[in-house]
């Protein structure tokens, strides 16, 4: 986003140190109203620390962080009133029922009595949890816990939701349902800020994202921009061919060549044309995968490491 345009979150040279560990090392980003903004990276990249500063759980070591135009360090309570938070472990109270969890959380925002009960049943219905109101947390499935955490985070009608790894630990079906849910929230005009280490998730959900590694932001943009800039349209993964010793005129076709282990990644604009050229040149590539470039390739190119654990 351009400077001067009103942003919901604005970070400048933001750092966070825990003792000697520098978790966040001078990052810049700004999040626009009503967009879905992602932080993509492996565990330990500094995503969670950044989230914690945004939702005012912890304070920065240096730099500047404004949320809704307010200094996050000086106005934590005013900021918390306007956001919803879903932490990684959810922090659902195991000694309370589903309904009691939501009502307690509502009380912290000054919502009580009939208004709170009404809000609670509306949220439980929206999250398909209405039959579980008097269940204890341990009686819920993983997907239900995720949904309850989101229901609780929505209790104060937040302008922005901060979600730390909203789909980690979910099976593919529940993950898909969660994506639908999050897209629904964005449609309602809620700014979404999330972390993930799933490329596909970032590509599907995020309008814009930053790729973080070792406390730094390596790249920023829309998923498409990042792929164009740091990968290519197509990728041909060729296994077992040593391109160092093969003379093929690939210059016009391959934008970039990377080798990781036995696999060579040929970033190009058209897999079909590339395969034809290889066949013409007599290169036998019996094992290959032809696919579109993804954020996975962007991450690999930026860090030299794969994202998936």
């Amino acid at each position, binding site marked *: 986003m351009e400077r001067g345009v009103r942003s919901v979150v604005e970070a400048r040279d933001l750092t966070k140190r825990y003792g000697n560990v520098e978790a966040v090392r001078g990052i810049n980003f700004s999040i626009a109203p009503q967009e879905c903004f992602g932080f993509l990276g492996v565990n330990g990249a500094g995503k969670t620390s950044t989230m914690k500063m945004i939702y005012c759980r912890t304070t920065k070591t240096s730099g500047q962080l404004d949320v809704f135009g307010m200094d996050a360090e000086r106005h*934590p309570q005013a900021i918390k009133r306007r956001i919803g938070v879903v*932490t990684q472990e959810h*922090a659902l*109270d195991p*000694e309370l029922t589903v309904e*009691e969890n939501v009502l*307690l959380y509502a009380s*912290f925002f000054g919502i009580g009595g009939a208004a709170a009960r009404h809000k609670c049943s509306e949220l439980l219905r929206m999250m398909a949890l209405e039959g579980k109101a008097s269940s204890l947390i341990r009686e819920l499935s993983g997907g239900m816990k995720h949904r309850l955490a989101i229901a609780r985070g929505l209790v*104060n009608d937040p302008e922005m939701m901060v979600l730390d790894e909203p789909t980690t630990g979910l099976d593919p079906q529940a993950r898909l349902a969660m994506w639908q849910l999050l897209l629904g929230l964005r449609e309602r005009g809620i700014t979404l800020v999330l972390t993930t280490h799933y490329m596909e998730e970032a590509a599907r959900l995020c309008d814009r994202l930053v790729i973080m590694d070792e406390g730094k932001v390596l790249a920023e943009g829309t998923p498409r921009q990042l792929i164009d800039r740091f990968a290519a349209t197509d990728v041909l993964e060729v296994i077992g061919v040593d391109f160092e010793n093969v003379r093929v005129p690939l210059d016009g076709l391959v934008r970039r060549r990377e080798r990781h282990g036995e696999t060579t990644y040929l970033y190009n604009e058209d897999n079909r044309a590339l395969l034809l050229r290889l066949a013409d040149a007599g290169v036998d590539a019996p094992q290959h995968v032809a696919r579109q470039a993804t954020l996975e390739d962007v991450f690999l190119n930026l860090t030299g490491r794969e994202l998936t654990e």
Partner: protein
Amino acid sequence: MSPLGALFSRNSWNVFRRDFVAWQKYAASSITINIFDPIAYFLALGFGLGAYLTLGAKGSLLQFMAPGIVGVAALNAATFDACWGAYERLNNNGVYESMVTAPVDPLEIAAGEYLWQGFRAMLYGAIVLAVISIFGLVHSWWALLCLPLLALAGIVFAMPAFAVAMMVKTQEHLFYYFSFVATPMVMIGGVFFPLDKVPHWLLSIAWLTPLYHAVIIFRALVLGTPNVGLLANLAWLLVAMALFVWLPVPFLRNKLAR
């Protein structure tokens, strides 16, 4: 907001209510566990040892111990939950973690816990008070004044216990608090025997404990012999409350900011 001021903030009472709602699900077992111990001591020592001892002008050992046991019940009720319960809520259950994602200040968490421990101390102490009245050991309506004072004592008992729970790295370390603080306090707090014949150094240590002052007050109220001197004991408890109130807050703040 000062910690004492936080006792009146809305969210402190919401924290209190959280503990109350959770407690309702296991109230029966909690009450049984917390008051069985002191009542067993009371009956065994009072009837057993008491058969061999007379305290002269102070009456029977049973009568002497009865209000002391009310104090022990309050101490147990506040200390157990401030230690084990609060440790769980901070480290294992994510209860405090979720509170600080809402506009709740760690100070309000501490204040809410004090209120809750005060309530527990009052309730459990009152049950023991009812038990000793069945034995005909409560002699005056002044004993009703024990109720608010049980709450005050419970808050004072809870503060250092809660501070320790916020400080320790593992749950096992909480045992130190019981071994080095809570249990010795019961031994020398003037619960089981009068302290007028103990060496001066021991009496000085006893004077430093909140239980000593609480038990003196409860005993006078139960016997129906209130006197102006009790105001000094009350003042001790109020000063202790004002001194201890800050104790856990920096540790709690620190842990929650990680």
